[in-house]
């Protein structure tokens, strides 16, 4: 089980309570598809992903980005039981979607950078450390049921 300090809990719940999902979700996913183009392999049915402009204007990408970001909510609500919280999603990503777990890290890095741009210097080193710790735990949980 992961140990969270009070400070870390406050930082993480604070970020998500102020999160503009409709803004951050699309930006994070489209950034992942642009910066790490090989991740597009899972989205061939999303339509035009030909270049950065197309990706950023793609409604399917935007909708999916919001969905994925909301997927983190359950982790925020169950910080003391993240592995169990994501067990079902882990099986889904492994057995149905066939997503390489390394991709979770790529997306989480993009989420971090988009949140950093939004928060500016309020995204301190301490904030980054707590946020990244949370994302790393979620990423690990999502990879747990792969075999």
């Amino acid at each position, binding site marked *: 089980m992961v140990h969270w300090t009070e400070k870390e809990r406050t930082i993480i719940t604070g970020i998500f309570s102020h999160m503009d999902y409709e803004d951050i979700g699309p930006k994070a996913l489209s950034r992942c598809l642009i910066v790490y183009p090989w991740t597009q392999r899972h989205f061939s049915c999303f339509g035009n992903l030909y270049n950065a402009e197309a990706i950023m204007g793609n409604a399917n990408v935007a909708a999916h980005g919001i969905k994925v970001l909301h997927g983190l909510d359950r982790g925020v609500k169950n910080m003391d039981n993240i592995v169990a919280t994501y067990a079902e999603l882990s099986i889904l990503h492994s057995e149905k979607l066939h997503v390489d777990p390394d991709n979770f890290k790529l997306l989480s*890095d993009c989420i971090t950078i988009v949140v950093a741009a939004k928060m500016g210097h309020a995204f301190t080193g301490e904030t980054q*450390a707590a946020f*990244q710790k949370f994302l790393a735990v979620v990423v690990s949980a999502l990879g747990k049921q792969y075999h």
Partner: protein
Amino acid sequence: MLSNQEKMLIVQIWERLTPVAEEIGADALLRMFACFPGSKTYFSHLDISRGSPHLLSLGKKIVLALAEGSKDISQLTVTLAPLQIMHAYQLRIDPTNFKLLSHCMLVALSCHMRDDFTAVAHAAMDKYLSAFAAVLAEKYR
């Protein structure tokens, strides 16, 4: 693989940041020390607390090296030769740490440049930092 447009973007960004090299470099380092405490082990002989002269000087050196390298990316192996030798034989920093600092540098850029740090700029910069790190580690073995 960097397109000409990406190379230009990278040069422009580092030109813009050279006047605040100390600030950006120190910020990236502090983020790395906060998020990846193992990286601190290489600096036990320095004062790396916020605002310390050691931290600011180190941050400035790193950013200026990145800026210098960006001016002719095809010549990175030549430009970085002295730094390659230093990191391989003297500092011997495990190259996985280069990835950690690169990530924190991207976060620092994002906090500083906000919406100007577009997805396209991010992609270009990530590629540049990866190439820089790879060249830096070339003489390790």
